């Protein structure tokens, strides 16, 4: 599936290994959070990078203790209307200080891309045949923000207003 | 066969949608054409309606013609086919509190105060 990064389709170095299938040791892989819970000891001493995939109902707190083990956290959107993932990403960054890659997987649409970036996501797994233009556009069409957020082109003050008035 | 003749065969159904680009209420007419007036709506026996609906829905969605496509019940009243529920009567005619607006104002309604 195409990977969207910085508004472009990029190379995906990662692969998701479904539960039950053997986990390769020589390349970056993403495993499910459930597998991590069940088999965490088996990843002891692993050198290649590891990522974990959270179902939309799994909140950031569940993985907080183990974040230093993962270079990537994939946050699932069961439906694009299910916005829990925005809070998950934000908590990963703000509350738990996570600095690795956060990837949106599942059902997301280009119209949400700006929000994803602003809440701390770094990449998005888009459906086959997606229109790259729409993703690129989503980062350009709105240039104003009114709240603090995690994307550093945005202001840090509480309201965008302040930069202007203050 | 006109709507009037067919409704006599018992409980019938008509198929309706809102046109995507302007929201106008439309009905499936003869030959799969969408029409704005209920008077021109095709009526389908209950057992055929599901099949027709599925096909019309698929086509209207593919062609991005209509949204909210469904079938509704039609009954006969004074020899004229009339939507069975108040909701569909209002969609077919216009708001009861503004009879100067909607299809009723344009004579596109098939029952009640229709001019034609």
């Amino acid at each position, binding site marked *: 599936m195409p990977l969207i990064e910085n508004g472009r389709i990029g190379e995906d170095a990662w692969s998701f290994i479904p539960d039950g299938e053997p986990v390769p040791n020589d390349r970056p892989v993403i495993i499910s959070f459930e597998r991590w819970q069940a088999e965490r000891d088996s990843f002891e001493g692993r050198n290649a990078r590891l990522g974990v995939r959270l179902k939309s109902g799994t909140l950031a707190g569940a993985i907080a203790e183990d974040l230093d083990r993962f270079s990537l956290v994939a946050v699932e959107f069961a439906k694009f209307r299910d*916005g829990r993932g*925005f809070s998950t990403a934000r908590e990963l960054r703000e509350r738990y200080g996570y600095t690795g890659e956060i990837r949106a997987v599942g059902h997301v649409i280009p*119209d949400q891309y700006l929000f994803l970036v602003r809440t701390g996501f770094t990449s998005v797994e888009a459906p086959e045949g997606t229109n790259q233009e729409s993703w690129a556009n989503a980062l350009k*069409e709105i240039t104003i923000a*009114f709240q603090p957020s995690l994307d550093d082109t945005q202001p840090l003050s509480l309201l*965008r207003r*302040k930069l202007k008035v*203050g | 066969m006109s709507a009037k003749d067919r409704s006599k065969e018992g409980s019938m159904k008509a198929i309706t949608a809102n046109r995507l680009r302007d929201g106008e209420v439309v009905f499936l007419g003869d030959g799969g054409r969408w029409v704005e007036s209920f008077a021109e709506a095709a009526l389908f026996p209950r057992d055929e309606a599901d099949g027709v609906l599925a096909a019309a829905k698929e086509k209207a969605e593919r062609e991005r013609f209509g949204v909210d496509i469904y079938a509704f019940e039609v009954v006969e009243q004074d020899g004229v086919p009339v939507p069975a529920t108040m909701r569909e009567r209002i969609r077919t005619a216009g708001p009861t509190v503004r009879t100067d607006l909607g299809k009723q104002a344009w004579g596109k309604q098939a029952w009640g105060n229709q001019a034609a």
Partner: protein
Amino acid sequence: MNHIAPGARAGIYHYDEIDRQFVAERVEQFRKQVDRRLSGELTEEEFKPVRLMNGLYLQLHAYMLRIAVPYGVMSAVQLRKLAEIGRRYDRGYGHFTTRQNLQYNWIKLEDTPAILHELAEVDMHALQTSGNCVRNVTTDPFVGAAKDEVVDGRVYAEILRQWTTMHPEFTYLPRKFKIAISGAESDRAAVRIHDVGLLARRNDKGEPGFSFYVGGGLGRSPFVGKLVREWVAQEDFVAYLEAILRVYNQYGRRDNIYKARIKILVHELGLETFTREVEEEFARLRGPKYRLDPEVVEAIRQHFAPPPFEELPDHSDALERARAADPAFANWLAVNVAEHKAPGYAIATISLKPAGGIPGDATCDQMDLVADLAERHSFGELRVTHVQNLVLAHVKKDELYDLWKRLDDAGLGSANAGLIGDIIACPGLDYCALANARSIPLAQAISARFADPVRQRTIGELGIKISGCINACGHHHVGAIGILGVDKKGTEYYQITVGGDPTLTTAIGDILGPAVTETEAVDAIEAIVDVYLANRRDGAERFVDTLARVGHAPFKERIYAAD
């Protein structure tokens, strides 16, 4: 874009380049989204939330566009633009809603980008008037004019407008989220029936802050908002809301749309657990990033500086002469005019409830007239109330008679604010795709039955509220008399509740008995009124108080005995 400044003195927030650029960008974004929908790149399922975020619904006859009137305050210039749009793109009228917004009922999807573009010319938009985001924040329609004001609710509502605008984390909430702010001691914003209600309070040191009520709401399962925190300082109030919304976004139910509002979360978690979660989140968020800088508050307050009131004596001879000479005017004064904080001024409510009329509807000509009158008599500014009326907040007492005559000539002079003729009704089955029954014809029949202004005043304060289905857009649960439309095998029936109360002593009404037909409903309302009048003490006891004292029995007997 031809930008038209909305009037320098009006007590409304003035857009700067940033606000303007933002709205312009959103219009262009929606234009592209419409193109993508029409070209098939977006499915209806994907497009629907996008159009809803731009205020565009599909109703029975066409699309409906809901225009945001932030906290219900707008300028004459803006109202004139709404009239113009109503003529060009709709059918010459608009509907003012209990959410202090305006709805057009006959909009074409393909016209919407052009309409939004025109709205942007006067700093207006339709953003966040629908969808599962934080909706337009509402406040007291008497803000800036009322005598009992603690803080200016517009300042905080504007801060929230900005903070919630395209909030990246809270735009795909489990369900819609409505916030109301009351800046005064008496609650004219119905704060306890909102997802979050803020009530301004000063602490012992005189510092401004807010009491937070959470989890109120009507609909299928009505709840009265619960006090989550007695006092949150001004500088923390956004952080506290952020905490509430984050808890809601994470834990609110998404498996069942009827259980998705925050009221259900508060109910299911229990107030204690919910509050603990919020407090924990708040403790973490509190800090420089989320602190509301007093400078920001001050800068926004500047936008709402009081208009240049003249120094006037409080007594107006002209007013007293007119009152004595014209009983109809005297009646309107007694019913529709409230005290102003500035001597010599008054607050005038323009009723959109003529006897037999459609509650909340105004023609474009009426909108133009009100815009003119706002310019002439109220510093070019007006408000929309949550009971679907309009308010001119700063009218010189000397000019009230002129104002009323112009209003009355245009069918806007009804003297019924707060009385039985001041009925709230949702659009119901005449327009709404979700309705079970019509609301408007019943409102028309009731207001026609009680058209006599003397009879209305005799009855006194009595709110009737009608919803066409359980979603309760007409607030029927909190009507002194509430009416809910239900569908029984294709026939419209109406269920009557009594004893609701939308003020701080919020109460949900109780069902009086089996549902009745439309004709029976009008008679039943009259019977309720008769029983009330026969039982009330001292000729002045309020309906709700009489009801509380005598109970349902006498009312039931009268309505249902006849069968």
